[in-house]
């Protein structure tokens, strides 16, 4: 079967989404994974965006943004950020969310803010980053508030780090009970779905370990592309190939083929 790594990642993420969930979707891959799930196996999924677009499905291909007209043409409600990010997400009400990561660490903390030669936590002071990214957007709200959430990231050792430069969206912080102590209402990230496999947190230490790898790779390659000493689940398994139906559904959502253009 022919598909790109990005497509596999979207399908694998979509499989993590359960029918009926109230789920907040971000732009790009996040939206594709979510709407793929709705079309594929979760018809009662209740997706929304952080600006408060409800009841919509994309038309004409991957929306350029979460306020793109492609996601606004058949909505049942438009509200606002206070509603979507506050009332439904920060409050702890949303079941699930999907966020992306430029860097992610072994406790599921995500950086989407910047790349530093001397990160603030190491330097003890805050200087402008060497590379500015986007900031957290709604991802911090999602990471703190959703009952659980999914992280999508390209699996490279410069992105899968022992400790990220800047925590934009907290996962399990320093691991163990650290997140609980912070008092966040949401439960934390339930999986990191990468371009190579699926990592899940150890129930005690909250360190992410390799739970499954994609058919086109193996445990060794995943470890090589991980910036920390990645632990492997004793039950590590190969992720089943996307079915033809799954790929067809994904491509119905990704009508413009955005995931096929990338590697």
């Amino acid at each position, binding site marked *: 079967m022919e598909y790109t790594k990005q497509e596999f990642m979207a399908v694998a993420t979509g499989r993590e989404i359960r029918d009926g969930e109230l789920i907040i979707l971000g732009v790009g891959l996040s939206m594709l994974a979510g709407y793929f799930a709705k079309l594929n196996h979760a018809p009662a999924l209740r997706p929304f965006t952080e600006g408060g677009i409800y009841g919509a499905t994309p038309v004409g291909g991957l929306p*350029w943004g*979460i306020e793109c007209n492609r996601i606004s*043409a058949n909505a049942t409600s438009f509200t606002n950020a206070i509603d979507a990010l506050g009332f439904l997400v920060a409050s702890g009400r949303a079941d699930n969310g999907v966020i992306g990561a430029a860097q992610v660490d072994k406790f599921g903390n995500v950086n989407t803010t910047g790349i530093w030669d001397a990160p*603030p936590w190491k330097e003890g002071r*805050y200087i402008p980053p060497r590379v*500015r990214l986007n900031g957290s957007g709604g991802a911090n709200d999602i990471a703190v508030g959703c009952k659980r959430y999914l992280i999508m990231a390209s699996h490279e050792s410069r992105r899968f780090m022992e400790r990220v430069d800047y925590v934009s969206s907290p996962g399990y912080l320093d691991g163990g009970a650290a997140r609980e102590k912070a*008092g966040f209402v949401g439960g934390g990230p339930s999986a990191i779905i990468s371009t190579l496999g699926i990592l899940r947190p150890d129930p005690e230490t909250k360190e992410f370990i390799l739970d499954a790898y994609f058919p086109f790779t193996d445990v060794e390659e995943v470890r090589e592309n991980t910036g920390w000493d990645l632990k492997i689940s004793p039950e590590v398994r190969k992720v089943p190939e996307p079915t033809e139906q799954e790929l067809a559904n994904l491509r119905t959502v990704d009508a413009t083929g955005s995931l096929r253009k990338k590697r």
Partner: protein
Amino acid sequence: MRNKLISLQEAVAAYTWDGMTYCNGAALPVGSDSIVFGVEMARQGRKDLNVICHCGSQQVNLLGAVGAIRRVEVGFSGLEVYGFAAGLNRAVTSGKTQIEDYSNGAMAMRLFGGAMNWPFVPATVNTFNDQQYCSCDEPDQYPCSKKIPLITDPFTGKQYGAFRTIRPEVAAIHVTMADIHGNAIMLGTEWNRFEMSRASEKVVLVADRIVDTDCMRQYPNLVRIIGEVVDAVVYWPFASYPQASCGLYDSDEEQMFYMNKMMKTEADTETFCQTWVHGWHTREEYQALIGREKIDKITDTATAFLLDPYRKWIKTDAEVEELEKDARG
């Protein structure tokens, strides 16, 4: 209420100044924003701005690229699928622009608190991570204790954060439709335009369409921005270009990429500005610059039906020009 129509140039001259706290938006980078207002600010050479926005959009990208921004408080500075904001990021990494990060949710809550005139709002997000620990205003302290200080809930004794609320000096808010009094209807998500319109000391609307007040009387529940809090109304079709306006036009994919690419260097920004900032003055010239072909393409939007109920109240360009004359007195 008085007729508040004013030209774009006059609005920027009257309601913006160097060093001000300016609030734009407030949509995401692909959607509704008062972009043309920021472009005119660049044309008039505003500088030293303290910008508040949950999402920068191409407006803040441009203002950053031309070096007009001293400091920006932001939730998301990128352009979504169109990429990182090259102009703003260049200003940030060079140290020209200080950036203070919050989440999008936090920015909305802080504007809500500002509209309430509350001293602070409880922070259940942005705490115990680098949004709290890093501040461009207190760079030498990590973790920073002043940006989002900890407070104690008097009912349970538990610790929470506290967000500083925001009361911008001026907000330029893009709306789909406004009447001459400043009553406005937004199609698509509001983001935090409702809160922003109440939190800001002065409000300038930048409207894609001017409609008769009868439209508001038929749909009062849609009028979320009220003339009572609006100081001026600028009529500008394609005010959000090259971004989208729900019900009217899609984002111009080509121009979005082109503009951002040009923001990467000072020289290219200069080139871009010659055409897109300094190369036009009137609404007609602006639309001519965009070009008929592009306009036909972007107005062929799947959301066009959302405008249908209001079309009969939309003023023609000629009618608006008469009203603008009336406003000048």
